[in-house]
């Protein structure tokens, strides 16, 4: 077989930069309003099967029932127990901001006190030797004037000694 002649390979550069607005819906919106106004993390429960959700769910994943109304929500945390985690050492382009990720970036799933639910968020600790599943952590909130009603109203979870 004859070798193909070497042709110049042309690449076209493209950047997709598209703004979106994403509607949270009612329970998640209320969850964020509580973070912002009262530093409260809420969970709710399915009245049919008892499964718990944080942030509060509208519809139960398991049985498709409508979950309970806000007057039955329970405040959980801000303390909790670390279930599992990762520590990212390699940066990448964050698709929602277009910025590069600052590393090390450590994230945990925290079982919040008060209900069998997890919340995923940053950990303050980034040293793998100092992170162990089962350790106690606590949510640290931004000062009130800086809170915007989104998940970043919590800065991170810090390690606590009890």
């Amino acid at each position, binding site marked *: 077989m004859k070798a*193909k002649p070497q*042709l110049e*390979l042309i690449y076209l550069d*493209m950047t*997709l930069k598209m703004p979106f607005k*994403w509607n*949270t819906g009612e329970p*998640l919106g209320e969850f*964020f309003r509580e973070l912002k106004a009262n530093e409260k993390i809420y969970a709710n429960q399915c009245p049919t099967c008892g499964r*718990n*959700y*944080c*942030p509060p*769910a509208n519809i139960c*994943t398991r049985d498709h029932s409508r979950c309970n109304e806000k007057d039955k929500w329970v405040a959980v945390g801000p303390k909790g127990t670390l*279930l*599992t*985690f*990762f*520590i*990212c*050492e*390699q940066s*990448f*382009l*964050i*698709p*929602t901001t277009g910025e590069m*990720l600052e590393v090390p*970036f450590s*994230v945990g*799933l925290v*079982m919040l006190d008060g209900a*069998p*639910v*997890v*919340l*995923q*968020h*940053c950990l303050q600790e980034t040293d*793998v030797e100092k992170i162990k*599943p*089962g350790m106690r952590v606590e949510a640290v909130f931004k000062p009130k004037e800086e809170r915007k009603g*989104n*998940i*970043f109203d919590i800065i991170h979870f810090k390690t606590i000694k009890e």
Partner: protein
Amino acid sequence: MTQRVAIVGIGQTNHSGRRPYHNDGEVIYDAISAALADAQLSIKDIDNVIIGDMELFEGHSLNDAMLLDYTGAEGRSGFKMNTGGTVGSMNVISGWYNVASEFSDTTLVIGWEKHDEGPTTSAITTIWDPAINRPFEVGAISGLAMISNAYMTRSGCPLEVGAIVRAQASDNAARNPKAHLRERYTVQDVMSARMVLYPLNLLMICPTSLGACALVLAGEKKARKINKKPVWIRDHATAHQVTRGMDFMAEAGKIDTSMTVTGRKIFQRNHITKPMEEIQVFEMYDPCAFCQPAWLEEFGLCEAGQGWRLIEKGVTAREGSFPVSPSGGTLCTNAIGDTATVRVAEAALQLRGDAGEHQVTREVKMALASGYGGMYWTDLLLLSNTLD
């Protein structure tokens, strides 16, 4: 109005990180041409075309329409699948529905991806819930890292087991000319690789590859005429799992996962009571080094806590009593849209005895292939080389 369905043509490109002179269409065309040649058919013999990939990886949508010239779908029925990581197996399952229902007699299934064209970890991060999860995820690997940590905590699996899995995969891939990463690594090599996302280092996560895989499916009567060694799709199951807030992890180890559900369905429906004896090989979609131990357990192939011990004993090696991913698996080759199609193709090659240097030493009559992806969804297919 139903018929049995067989795989009668298998085609796969070589996989690589980058392949000059190949645009997306040419990669697809190579895989289709190989599958049609394997079946000794031409595109004129195909009724229906199903194609799948990860949307956004190549920076454009509606790939099926854009690539119509290469896929050969003009004037034919068919559609595009976009189910994330499972797209490659969902393609095969959709092909099965089309042929089993006698809607078509021959269906061409194509899975493909060209990871070299964009920031795919950024693209895949958009699968996560934008308000709750997305800011705290790094593509697909972060979720896998958390599953891995949770599995190690729950089962006592040591970090070294991940390195055993990867070293074994590297030996398999070295024998497979279609694989992407074909370098052989020792357990020590894997342990000393650069950390990417603790506990997963660079060798413990799947690569970003470029490649395509195509299968020709045919109904029972036609299949026997086309190919002397048809591989039968005996059964398949799909299960979804919610990851809103990763909340299923709160009950990890206690609730059924998508693997548990699909495994149970397949084994019960096919009266399989000792899966590791009655089934001889498993091409598992294993995107990180701790998937094999954790998922052997979750699929119900062994008891909880035993997965990593079986790996330590060499059970899952190519020459072992239950080889897992003898092609080198997803850990060595991962052009996402084709990854699960490759699992089915490789399981079928094992059943035909056509896997070449990476053929398992055990005689294969029945095989499993799985697909896996966001959001923790699983497809499981049971294949065999006879209808007995």
